[in-house]
């Protein structure tokens, strides 16, 4: 359940911004979660809700923007989209892929009051 640690990390980041920007309440936390990242969105929502209790983010809604994974196929010599580690190249069906992006887990922005 590493989503618990990730949720605590989110609260730390949000509290840093609350101290800097002086907001009282967070309504929406907008997250970018890559298809190849190590996070399960449903578990993250569940953990975040309990970790956020009695903080500025209590009751905040998580809005997850899914980001596709991108890999380089050595056989096709081009970039292709992949949904998970171990997927075939959608072009040639091979596995000689080098993942280039799609493992990000970031807070993009906050909607605050």
């Amino acid at each position, binding site marked *: *359940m*590493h989503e618990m640690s990730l949720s605590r990390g989110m609260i730390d980041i949000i509290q840093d911004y609350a101290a800097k920007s002086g*907001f009282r309440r967070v*309504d929406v936390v907008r997250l970018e979660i890559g298809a190849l990242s190590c996070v399960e969105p449903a578990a993250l929502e569940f953990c975040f809700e309990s970790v956020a209790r009695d903080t500025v983010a209590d009751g905040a809604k998580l809005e997850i923007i899914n980001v596709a994974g991108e890999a380089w196929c050595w056989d096709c010599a081009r970039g292709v989209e992949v949904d998970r580690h*171990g997927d075939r190249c959608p072009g040639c069906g091979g596995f000689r892929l080098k993942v280039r992006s799609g493992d990000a*887990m970031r807070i993009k922005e*906050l909607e*605050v009051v």
Partner: protein
Amino acid sequence: MCTTCGCGKDDIKIDGEQRAGDNHSHAEHRHDHQHSNETRLIEVEQDLLAKNNRYAAENRRRFSSQGVFVVNLVSSPGSGKTTLLVRTVSALVGQAPIAVIEGDQQTSRDVERIRSAGVPGVQINTGKGCHLDAHMIGHALEQLVLPEGGVLFIENVGNLVCPAAFDLGEAHKVVIISVTEGEDKPLKYPDMFAAADMMIVNKVDLLPYVEFHTKRCVEYAKRVNPEIEVLILSATSGAGLDDWYAWVSAGRDACLAARDFGETTTQHLPGPVHP
């Protein structure tokens, strides 16, 4: 009410009584601050692991400044991590400075096994935690003299999921799978095999008694991570261990060379590959 200047209508009640607000209107004075009931957007653009990654970078800086080769061993429980580690430190103890950080939810049984092999070790008990993070490693280093010019092994909590996400400052994650597990674990738990630079297939002495297709397992791992290196060995019989020791020594040499030439990273070290 604006909480910064107190203007506008107040909805705070004390003992059930509405508090009298400051009655001047917003238009009466200049506002250079935002009003609290207005929704605004704050751009953050920060990785959820930012804090862990800062601690990991600090650990890595300490390791490279002292030329320490750091290996983070990850696997499911029961793959033989501790047995491999005890055998490895016993074999290398006379040749290089070695230390071990052990991670488990409870008990110090593993670190006792390491210490009885004559090697210094620190046990981290994560309690309910399912993985080690870079901050815990920083604390463990307060109680451990870094093996300058040597090797630090970190044995992570037995868990094939969570430790994949957490950089500890190591040079390599090494994932161990034993032949008593399913050969399709790389496909079932791809994040870990994608994060690792090497896969060790352990307990090959048991191959005659179990249904495990080594070749297929390696093929699955390479699907997930085409660059993963593979070693096939048995920590009990000793088969294949020389290749593992050679890989560790090559990593250690590269770290020492990097320190002496003032480089800060030790990625993509050479090592034997057994398809």
